């Protein structure tokens, strides 16, 4: 069983399926894809993220050995390696999976709206919705919390797929091994009030920026700022928002390892969208390790004219008339304090374990480290084994030592290898 349908989970599932194992891929949200589906481009190659991901999602879903259990959650685990019994709850979509064709007529007609979580709550979706255009499986889901029970969807559906009586379904599955690949969440910067997130309209997070820049996002890929829809001419990135922070009430002392990378990527993306804009990155250290990345930073400076300032801003204030932002920083060349005005500020928050991971760890009986990431039983000899034999983990849920997409993919494959190794000589039920 693979818990988590992000890129790491998808890779693990595909590899295991190719080896002849039957794989149940359990995913909490209505579609697989994970964080990579939300990205516009990947670094440092600037490839379209969905273009790389979508074929993998489809290949995985169509594999005869893979059974997708989306909109489902693991609720209980018994047994041991080779012989786990896992209780999975399939949350009701209120849509018959065998009948729905994903045509979307229901969504077009639905009168009820809700914030679109996939777009980081920037845009809206309907109560009956397809999470994103390339969703796998291609099914709509009804969000009962926002549904007004008008029944319009039922009336217009050409396949008669709406089933408002649907109940949650509990199934018990026999599996030989489990892989956890639950990925990450982004830290909420409103915990650091000096940066003005949620108080000032034009302070956004990097993920919100990704969704804005993405052609399938809430603005159709146009870089516009929240307060007035104007194109920002000056943009600031602030690194290390919440990371490398030992203060008791923040408590994320680690470096998230990919924020510098995605910041430079986003900065270059902005320059590609709006070549005349002025982009500045405020950093403490520019962690550009790995192949191609320092070169990418150099290109960002020389080719794209992005300004890198080594200074961590202390606070941001807002001009109430223009909604422009005033960033206070110290210019480390002249060693004097300045402020600069920007149309848009992008915060690069730290990456934290997914919400709900603590309960999952309890259900699985595995240990988490003191940051809430899954703990390897031995970081050197068995880095992908959790503290329970037969349960493995891959991708960012193991913690920020993972670099980026290729690393998550590599770990996904590696867990498949580990499982094959462990189960090879065992009596598997």
């Amino acid at each position, binding site marked *: 069983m693979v818990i988590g349908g992000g890129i790491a989970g998808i890779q693990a599932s595909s590899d295991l399926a190719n080896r002849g194992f039957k794989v149940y891929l359990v995913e909490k949200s209505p579609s697989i894809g994970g964080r990579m589906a939300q990205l516009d481009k990947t670094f440092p190659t600037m490839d379209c993220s969905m273009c790389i991901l979508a074929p993998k999602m489809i290949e995985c879903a169509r594999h005869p050995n893979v059974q997708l259990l989306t909109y489902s959650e693991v609720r209980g685990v018994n047994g041991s390696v080779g012989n786990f019994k896992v209780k999975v709850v399939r949350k009701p979509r209120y849509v018959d999976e065998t009948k729905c064709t994903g045509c979307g007529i229901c969504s077009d007609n639905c009168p009820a709206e809700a914030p679109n979580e996939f777009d980081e709550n920037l845009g809206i979706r309907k109560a009956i919705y397809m999470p994103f255009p390339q969703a796998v499986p291609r099914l709509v889901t009804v969000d009962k919390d926002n549904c007004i029970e008008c029944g319009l969807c039922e009336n217009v559906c050409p396949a008669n797929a709406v089933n408002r009586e649907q109940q949650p379904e509990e199934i018990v599955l026999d599996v030989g091994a489990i892989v956890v690949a639950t990925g990450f969440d982004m830290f909420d910067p409103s915990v650091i009030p000096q940066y003005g997130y949620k108080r000032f309209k034009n302070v956004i997070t990097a993920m919100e920026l990704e969704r804005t820049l993405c052609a399938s996002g809430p603005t159709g890929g146009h870089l516009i700022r929240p307060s007035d829809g104007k194109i920002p001419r000056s943009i600031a990135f602030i690194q290390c928002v919440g990371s490398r922070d030992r*203060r*008791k*009430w923040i408590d994320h002392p680690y470096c998230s390892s990919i924020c510098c990378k995605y910041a430079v990527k986003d900065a270059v993306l902005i320059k590609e969208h709006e070549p005349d804009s002025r982009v500045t990155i405020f950093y403490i250290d520019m962690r550009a390790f790995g192949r191609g990345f320092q070169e990418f930073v150099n290109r960002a400076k020389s080719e794209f004219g992005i300004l890198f300032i080594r200074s961590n801003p202390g606070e941001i*204030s807002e001009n109430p008339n223009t909604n422009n932002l005033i960033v206070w920083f110290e210019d480390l060349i002249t060693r004097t304090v300045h402020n600069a005005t920007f149309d848009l500020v992008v915060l690069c928050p730290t990456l934290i374990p997914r919400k709900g991971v603590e309960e999952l760890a309890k259900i699985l009986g595995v240990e988490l480290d003191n940051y809430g990431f899954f703990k390897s039983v031995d970081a050197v000899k068995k880095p992908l084994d959790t503290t329970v034999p037969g349960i493995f983990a891959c991708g960012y849920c193991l913690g920020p030592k993972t670099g980026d997409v290729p690393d998550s993919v590599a770990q996904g494959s590696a867990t498949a290898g580990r499982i094959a190794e462990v189960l090879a000589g065992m009596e598997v039920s």
Partner: protein
Amino acid sequence: MKYAFFLGCLIPAREPNYEHSVRKIASELGIELVEMEGANCCAPFSIQSVDYASWLALAARNLCIAEEMGLDILTLCNDCYESLLMTNTILKEDKETRDKVNEVLADVGLEFKGKTNVKIFSDALYEDIGLEKVKNAIKEPFNGLRVAVQPGCHLTKPKRIHFEEIVAAAALDELVEATGAESIAYERKEACCGGPLRGINDEVALHVAKQKLDGVKTAGADCIVTVCPFCYNELDMGQLEIKRHFKQEYDLPVLHFAELLRMAMGMKLEDWEVKAHRIPITKILNIKETK
């Protein structure tokens, strides 16, 4: 409620109006303020700058006096609060330092045992008396008064010392609003008034005060309300000095929180108390008259 009343140095010397309002509120709300016989200066930042051990020993002496009285300390000044609270925290947690300080205190027949707590006036009202009781005591609310609350730096910072306490700035806002006034949001509410540099570097102090006053004025406040006598002095007298040096006027009267509360409880300010404000508070008194 009974407290060991720590007045500090600044209030008896310069701001008797603050003490007077506190005493009036105390008798109305049934708070007994017991004098700390022989208490010395808390050792504010100026003294802490000279020597670490001297600071701890002096502050600890006051804590010991309160311990012997079997009461918690009530202070009226943010600087005293910070000094006594920090000392109390350090000596409670660090045995080595505590032993060294007790060596010094032994000379004056005292020993720090860690039995008392330090409270500032607004926290004591909120935590120990309770917002409800304060609200019930309001007889003449200040409806329509727009107040810029100045919590002062040492009500809430450093967060790791104050963190486990209730969120003091929010408590102060609620208490101000209990009097019927509106606590408005303004830029740099958490910023310093400049007070600690008064007497050491007046020019810098004024520049800092100016930043604060600019923010308050832009937000359209009627007046400033503060818990700390340093803030009071810097923002009240400071406006006169800013008028002289920078040719800028704000006309923002500054009130002690205790004065605001006492007036809302139906006790008018006496003549000498009105005159104790360098920026005239007539418009605040007029608001009361017209209700």
